[in-house]
């Protein structure tokens, strides 16, 4: 995995990715990905997003198995729902909101490395598409893969958007349960005594549970558009073919 500390960011990142783009663009487009900054690539189906973000890391020989000093390229990848509360994909220096898996890194210390590095990137993306994203092709497959067997606001929002209000209520009642996360907890100071603790619901959960169904639908729609704006994803929603 990449650490964010020695990543190349900002204009330098966009510049290097721009140099690489002619080598990789055709493969990425063939798989249905599009980009508006040449760094983050997205594919959308309903509320489901498949994404990857090119990352360049400055490594010294020996770091993470690098055999040369200098810049190395790889990418973070994953999938997300555009209505997930507080979604943040590949914006800014850190990947705080979405902890994404990443590929290995390939050296691009001189321009002659670009063809080989780009071939490696394309192969990695084709493999990920074949092995991972063929199994997560719809919102429901995303839920099967990530959200089953536990309550979450992401799940409640999706069920609300799908107008499955009984199911949404079933999970929401757990999130706002009077005895939510009731537990016997010991402190570090005294491990021989336990206190009874709870984890009360957050403000968003409590407020959402008090809303009427039409109000809930509006909250989910507003949250989705906020995510689109925050992540600068408007270009994905402009073409009718993407929906």
């Amino acid at each position, binding site marked *: 995995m990449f650490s964010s500390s020695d990543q190349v960011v900002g204009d330098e990142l966009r510049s290097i990715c721009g140099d690489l783009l002619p080598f990789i663009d055709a493969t990425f487009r063939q798989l249905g990905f599009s980009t508006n900054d040449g760094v983050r690539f997205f594919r959308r189906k309903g509320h489901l997003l498949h994404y990857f973000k090119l990352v360049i890391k400055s490594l010294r020989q020996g770091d993470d198995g690098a055999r040369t000093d200098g810049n190395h390229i790889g990418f973070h990848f994953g999938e997300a729902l555009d209505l997930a509360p507080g979604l943040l994909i590949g914006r800014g220096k850190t990947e705080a909101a979405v902890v994404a898996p990443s590929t290995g890194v390939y050296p691009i210390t001189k321009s002659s490395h670009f063809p080989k590095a780009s071939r490696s990137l394309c192969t990695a993306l084709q493999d990920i598409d074949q092995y991972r994203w063929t199994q997560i092709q719809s919102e429901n497959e995303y839920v099967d893969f990530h959200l089953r*067997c536990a309550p979450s606001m992401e799940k409640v929002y999706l069920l609300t958007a799908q107008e499955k209000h009984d199911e949404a209520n079933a999970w929401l009642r757990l999130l706002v*349960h009077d005895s939510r996360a009731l537990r016997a907890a010991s402190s570090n100071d005294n491990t021989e005594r336990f206190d009874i603790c709870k984890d009360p619901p957050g403000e968003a959960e409590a407020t959402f549970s008090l809303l009427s169904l039409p109000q809930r639908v509006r909250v989910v729609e507003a949250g989705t558009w906020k995510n689109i704006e925050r992540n600068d994803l408007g270009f994905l929603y402009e073409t009718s073919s993407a929906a």
Partner: protein
Amino acid sequence: MKQVRQLKDPTRNAIRNVIEPWLSNSGFVPAEKMSFNRLRGPLIDHISFEFGRWGRGEVIYAYFSVHLVEDPVTSLHTHHAGGRLGASWYPEDRDACKAAAEAMLDNLRLSAFLWFDEIDSISKYEGAWFDSGIAVAFAAIARSDVELARIYLRDALARKAPVVYSSGYPGWRSNEHGRSQDEVDALTDALAAIESGTVDVWRRKIREQRLNELGMKR
């Protein structure tokens, strides 16, 4: 006064003569080795003891937890709705073992029994397990809320194991749900009972099975 047989092994002696009588007076029934259960309506209180090493000394651990009788999946050894107490143990010294056992009972009174008193309903149990779709499914059945149970069970059975690792490459699982076949069968069985309207028969069967397993025939 009743004559108490003193066992040669200090550990067994302390368990048999200090802990067992006290738990027995509190309504607990011995089950498998060093494990005790108490039936409390739809719930089971569970206490078990284990020994371990900490540095150069030995330690006794007391696990306490509350479980649902009509839950064929969640193990009694899971102390998600419970906790663990630890104390030093002196396996070579009979008097020290007895003193440590008595101290452990004091701690159990102040912690485990406080916890048992706190979880006084299926609703509190459900709160403790709010993040587990399977546990809340069986809690819903125990509250006779079959519509809710149906939603949770269908959701649990729809879960796909992460058959691809974070590397993006596929993993290998025993089945697509990523859980044991016994668990899948138990969930399927419960859902089938709800769909066919025979959930009361299913509940009686599961209750009987569980109590038989724990030696608490009623």
